[in-house]
């Protein structure tokens, strides 16, 4: 029994901004289902009251004095971008925007 349907994989692909062919959808549904099947061993555990760990250490905010330091060179950064204009990253039209 698969834990994951084709529709769910298609939905997740859309959320992740990936386009899948019908063939890919079939393969990924099967492969991801197998991994989730393996992960089922976690779901059978009773972990009531166990706190979650998202990070190996307790993280605290790290602050520094608000002084100007060395930063990246804007020209070098924009030079490495696919498209730039007037000192900014340039992108194609955003849907629905009046031009």
């Amino acid at each position, binding site marked *: 029994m698969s834990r*994951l349907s084709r529709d*769910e*994989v298609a939905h*997740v*692909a859309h*959320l*992740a*901004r*990936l*386009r*899948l062919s019908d063939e*890919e959808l079939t393969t*990924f549904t099967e*492969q*991801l289902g*197998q*991994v*989730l099947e*393996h*992960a089922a*061993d*976690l*779901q059978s*555990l009773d*972990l009531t009251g*166990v*706190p*979650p*760990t*998202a*990070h*190996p*250490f307790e*993280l605290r905010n*790290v602050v*520094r004095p608000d002084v100007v330091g060395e930063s*990246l*060179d804007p020209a*070098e*950064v924009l030079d*490495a*971008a*696919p*498209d730039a204009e007037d000192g900014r*990253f340039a*992108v*194609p*039209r*955003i*849907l629905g925007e009046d031009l």
Partner: protein
Amino acid sequence: MSAIDLAASVRRGEVTATDALATALRAIDARNDELNVFLHVDRDGAEARARAVDDAVASGRDPGPLAGVPVALKDNLCTRGVPTTASSRILEGWRPPYTATVVERLVAAGAVPVGKTNLDEFAMGSSTETSAFGPTRNPLDPERVPGGSSGGSAAAVAAGMAPLALGSDTGGSIRQPAALCGIVGVKPTYGLVSRYGLIAFASSLDQIGPFATSVADAALCLEVIAGHDPRDTTSLPEPAPALVDHLDDGVAGRRVGLVSELVEGADADVVAQVERAAAALEAAGAQVVRLSIPELRLGLSAYYLIAPAEASSNLARYDGVRYGRRVAADELGAMNEATRTLGFGDEVKRRIMLGTYALSAGYYDAYYGQALKVRTRMIEAFRRAYEQVDVLLGATAPSVAFRFGEKTANPLAMYLSDVFTIPTNLAGEAAVSVPFGTGEAGLPIGVQLLGPGRSEARLLAAARVLEVAS
């Protein structure tokens, strides 16, 4: 020549950094076409760096503890002006505007970065087969994988192309290729080494560490790259620990736990070497006990929810806007989707989707939330074990280097390659893989020494004992 001996010779003026570099470049030229180890060799940059080291020596200045030592860098470490791809089409042609802290520290210590090595795309894989630029071949048997994800860095050291290399380890990506290539690999305590300039895969698990042909070289390299970095707010506050000074501490009086879950399911030749390693540690004065830590069995499942969840978030930044490649489309959303669809390979897509699913409404508690609780359990289980023993012992990988294509059709089979290495990452602790004996077809086997956070000196001393005994 070892990195330590080479640096000593360069500092004394007996060998020039330029000659040491030429030797490395000859080894690269001899086998790189065959093995596909380096994606980019930075000849000009390396030659300039080597000349600077030689100039320093000539004018009586000390270039540092790694004077003139060629180093190979996994291509997920940013190098200013030098192509950095993470073995992904989506970053092909990108030249980062900044350099990773670890690379700056190597250079400040006199090392000479020679180039960027192949990896599984975005470090997601255990064989280097998911690289968009073709797999790396194992120098010991080119029909087999070098392991992964840092397969190129491991192969570079194993093939004598550089005495040292850096890799990154999220679930075993330094230790497993070190084992499969017959060299030493260290996964440091989380936070010991700055991640600034490391292309992020799973930020709560990723850690940079060294590959070397000897424990002493690995210790020296780790000393150089470790220590607090204000540019990585998760880096530990203290300076680098002393490691080389403790290499000969031995294991007399140490309690070593041979963990049944860290050999369970491994091939017989691997289990035999782990048993032999336990005997060697005992002969050197350690007290070896057998332990079971059942929680370790849950590591694989927890990891393959947590790491993809973090990856799905980290890789959202590849949208064709700020760096890397863009696939043109007349509207922003279509451009984002086309860029990601053509830019990412299948394994990266699998992990992004798995992570997106595990984090999505309705499934978050059942998958990601549950995995985070298992992570707590894992940390507690390790803590209890370290109340009884000082060091844990097990296998690094379940088998010797496997053949190309053996595990590519079944992602879960590939994921099982990391079953013994994953728990250390989940706990944020330290582990070392050291070559110990050989198995099937005369291929090397790595045994793994695990310790609590900040136990690198203890682990390297134990690894040194095994190195001498093997």
